[in-house]
């Protein structure tokens, strides 16, 4: 059994619970031994790097120091979250490229009784380990319920295939690892041209109009390719495409209903596990119809809060105002 140190990251315990639940459900089946770093902290996402350099790298490196301390016979850290993966890989790489950064970080770590020698760990993404260590043959051999007929758009987002410091992926812009894995599960994998385009990242918080356009491009492309669902490997992408899809629909007057599911959930289904044990039902755009297509029952929906029913005697509301056009406003051509 291959042993790895796991750095889950904050999202896996909240917004991406479905990712963590499904990952835990499949590890035994494929012989993956993941040992979580004890008392890890947040990696700082894309926010801390833009505030202060040394504290940002010290924050990331506390995790590297703990991982190295607890490694016990392995040197590979696995991160399922894109931002976590990139931050750990980036810190490790830049501290080697620029030794003075490593010295500063180690001075800071010393205040907490820690140290880390840059380059002493391998930082890898979950998909990389599944495809290249566990292997597609092993994965294929565990499939008892092929996802035949399910049209899946593979979507990786930005931070896993790029900037790829250690050259682990087949391509920066059109890598095929996720496609091959989904193929091994028997799914009907779409050639999805936008598979590494941006989901908007933190723009949903900062400049929602920018984010909505990026979300619209992805969801409409998947819809045009007649995908039943999109399979992703990034908590941020899943959150933006799933939770902000209805907002995006409102903004553009569209009506897309594209489920966005973690690829580990699909692996669980193909391995014959129950949908309810794989975090299905946690997505805001339900995957019920997609699962029904291949004869799998979707767990009962957890009802989301509904608005108070309107009183009949209420005053009629005026018609909504015409929407300003974000592209023509600045004198730009409507795309």
């Amino acid at each position, binding site marked *: 059994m291959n042993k790895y140190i796991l750095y889950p990251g904050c999202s896996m315990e909240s*917004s991406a619970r479905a990712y963590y639940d499904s990952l835990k459900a499949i590890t035994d089946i494929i012989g993956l031994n993941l040992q979580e770093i004890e008392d890890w902290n947040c990696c700082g996402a*894309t926010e801390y790097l833009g505030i202060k350099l040394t504290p940002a790298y010290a*924050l990331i490196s506390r995790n590297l120091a703990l991982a190295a301390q607890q490694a016990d016979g392995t040197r590979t850290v696995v991160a399922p979250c894109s931002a976590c993966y990139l931050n750990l890989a980036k810190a490790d790489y*830049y501290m080697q490229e620029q030794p003075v950064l490593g010295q500063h970080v180690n001075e800071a770590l010393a205040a907490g009784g820690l140290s880390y020698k840059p380059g002493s760990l391998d930082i890898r993404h979950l998909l990389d380990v599944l495809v290249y260590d566990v292997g597609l043959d092993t994965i294929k051999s565990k499939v008892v319920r092929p996802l035949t007929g399910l049209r899946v758009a593979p979507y990786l987002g930005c931070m896993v295939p790029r900037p790829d410091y250690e050259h682990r992926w087949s391509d920066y812009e059109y890598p095929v690892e996720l496609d091959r894995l989904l193929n091994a599960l028997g799914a009907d994998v779409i050639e999805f041209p936008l598979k590494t385009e941006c989901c908007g990242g933190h723009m949903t918080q900062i400049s929602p109009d920018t984010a909505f356009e990026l979300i619209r491009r992805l969801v409409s492309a998947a819809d045009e390719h007649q995908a039943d669902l999109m399979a992703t490997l990034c908590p941020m992408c899943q959150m933006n495409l799933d939770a902000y899809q209805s*907002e995006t629909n409102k903004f553009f007057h569209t009506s897309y209903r594209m489920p966005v599911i973690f690829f580990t959930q699909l692996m669980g289904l193909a391995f014959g596990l129950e949908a309810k044990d794989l975090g299905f039902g946690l997505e805001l755009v339900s995957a019920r119809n997609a699962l029904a297509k291949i004869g799998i029952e979707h767990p009962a929906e957890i009802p989301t809060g509904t608005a108070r029913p309107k009183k009949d005697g209420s005053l009629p509301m005026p018609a909504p105002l015409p929407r300003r056009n974000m592209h023509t406003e600045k004198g730009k051509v409507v795309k």
Partner: protein
Amino acid sequence: MQTLDQERTSAPPKQIEDLSLLGEVSHRTAGVSRLEMCIQCGCCGGSCPSEADMDHTPRMLFAMLRAGMRHAALMSNTPWICVSCYHCVVRCPQNVHIADVMYTLKSMAIEAKLYQDSTAPDFSQTFVDMVEEFGRSFELGLATRHYLKHFPLRLPNMAPMGIGMLSKQRMNITPTRIKGIAQLKAVLKRAKEVEAAS
């Protein structure tokens, strides 16, 4: 905000120090930024998914840094609109660490208190405050505080999504605190001292 045309007619930088701006930015960037190697080809702007919303393309911004246009460069919204997708980074023929240069420009703008709109700096700062306090991010606290301050009118629109996330237990109601928070705080305190001294 001055347009580039207005800036073009104004006098060249008076202080000779300004001409070291490019070096300063490069020096403050993690790793070897290779910013000095930019050949102004424009691959970066052409690859950028959010270029339409930027004041300057990355190429333009780097030329402004080389010209010592400190104020205009730090006032630019470009680093704040950058989504860190790394398309430009892998396409740059000179291998400039463009995304990391954007992080440096953000931190320099915060330091100099130069930005047109405080939404993005505030978001980063709120996120960092939460992480420094708990050791983990806390989405509910972060999103609520941020939307209340910057998009109060959008809050009612966001409510269904927030309720959906809460009822599906995809957002924690209370923050999680790591056990080694004292250790983390000590590390970050020392890191800030090291940063100030360097």
